[in-house]
């Protein structure tokens, strides 16, 4: 009876730790600054594009929706970087300063800790995407003075790009298990990311099967004919990558001695 009672009460420790991890992130100045940088980058690129548009009128910019362009730039360059930094902070950083002990000695299993840290990172990604979405919409309206795009369409694009971003985060949290300093983990993640990108340029066929090619998944959807089967195939492939990264990452996290 005692054990059952404990079990029921402790069920929500997963929720408790998700809140904790998110709070830990946002109480770090670095993380909040990154969000502000995201907003500035979005606004500056909008400004840059609109000024080019004014000078080079023959480029048919109108046909491209600005919020989707920002999404492409953001998901391929800045978001991976921010993901690596956040993951490194929550894993390697805590191994390094040993503050991970503070969670490990609480009544919560390591699996739940690992899940909650990854959910916190997913929440951080969502917040980032929301910031990009809002700033790019507002700045494009402000600078071009019109909004010639369909909002549900763009929201959908942002939503589906969340999936590969989370998988990239799981990849980073696997790498972060091997480092005791966040900078080491960040540099390794960046080098691996660039390495995979370069390799897929030279090895034919690799581009289709590697998860990093789908970071701006939406742009691939919109090019050419939409094939339901191919999309489902890709979705399952990305999810499989996620499952593999999660399992291996958790294996090492569970073995960790602090």
């Amino acid at each position: 009876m005692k054990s059952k009672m404990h079990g029921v009460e402790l069920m929500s420790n997963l929720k408790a730790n998700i809140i904790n991890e998110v709070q830990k992130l946002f109480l770090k100045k670095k993380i909040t600054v990154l969000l502000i940088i995201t907003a500035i980058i979005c606004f500056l690129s909008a400004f840059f594009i609109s000024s080019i548009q004014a000078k080079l009128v023959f480029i048919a910019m109108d046909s491209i929706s600005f919020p989707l362009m920002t999404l492409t730039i953001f998901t391929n360059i800045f978001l991976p970087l921010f993901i690596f930094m956040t993951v490194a902070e929550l894993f390697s950083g805590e191994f390094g300063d040993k503050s991970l002990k503070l969670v490990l000695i609480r009544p919560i299993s390591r699996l739940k800790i690992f899940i909650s840290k990854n959910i916190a990172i997913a929440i951080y990604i969502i917040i980032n995407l929301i910031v990009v979405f809002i700033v790019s919409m507002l700045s494009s309206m402000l600078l071009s003075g019109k909004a010639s795009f369909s909002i549900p369409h763009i929201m959908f694009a942002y939503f589906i790009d969340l999936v590969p971003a989370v998988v990239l985060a799981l990849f980073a949290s696997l790498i972060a298990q091997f480092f005791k300093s966040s900078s080491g983990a960040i540099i390794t993640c960046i080098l691996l990311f660039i390495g995979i990108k370069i390799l897929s340029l030279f090895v034919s066929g690799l581009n289709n099967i590697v998860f990093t090619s789908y970071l701006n998944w939406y742009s691939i959807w919109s090019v050419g004919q939409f094939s339901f089967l191919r999309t489902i195939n890709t979705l399952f492939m990305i999810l499989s990558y996620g499952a593999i990264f999660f399992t291996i990452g958790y294996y090492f996290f569970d073995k960790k001695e602090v």
Partner: protein
Amino acid sequence: MEKVLKVEGLTKLYNNGRGVVDISFEVYKGDVFGFLGPNGAGKTTVMKSITGLNTFKKGRVEILGFDLKTQFESALGKVGAIIETADLYEHMSAYYNLKIASRFYYKNMEKYSIDEILDIVQLTEFKKEKVSKFSLGMKQRLALAIALISKPELVILDEPTNGLDIEGTIAMRNLIIELATTKGITFFISSHLVHEIELMCNKVAIINNGKLINKGEHIKSIKEKYASLEDFYMNEVKNARGGIDE
């Protein structure tokens, strides 16, 4: 008497061959159980294994009747601990450090409020200050507050006065004694200082070279047989070495 902590045949060896072998002892409710041994004897290894920071292949640990390996969350539900160093989230205030720890214990569970616990460790006026600005003594007291927030039945402290100055050491020691006597908390405290154990604990176990050479005796009865706890310690260590003085 109710058994709070039971360790049976615990063996934890690191890759370098060091570690602890076949450790067995029991801590009962109301005890302030001292775990005495020189540096590198394996005190921290045992404490890390008990709190799940280490994985061990051989042996069994039971806390408040729950098996650590199979019922981890229940076993640690009423435990507070400071292992090795007072680790804190340095970028946060004392308040947030406590807030984060308290979330694991729910409204219907008995726990201290943050203000109550800050008052106990005398850190109320530093509630909103960043931990990175704290002195070592303050950090140690805050770590103890975090360990106590859940109103634990067992508190595990690894060298709680390590690195503290004289005043800090006295404050920490008095706090532990007060909590044990007024709140009835069971303590399991490691130290390499005989004097420290003598002043705080009612029982003592001795660990040397990865092996437990004494499973826990009443300090009172030791003092009846020996001139001092120090004499007892030296005698036990000498016996463990086969009667040879070093």
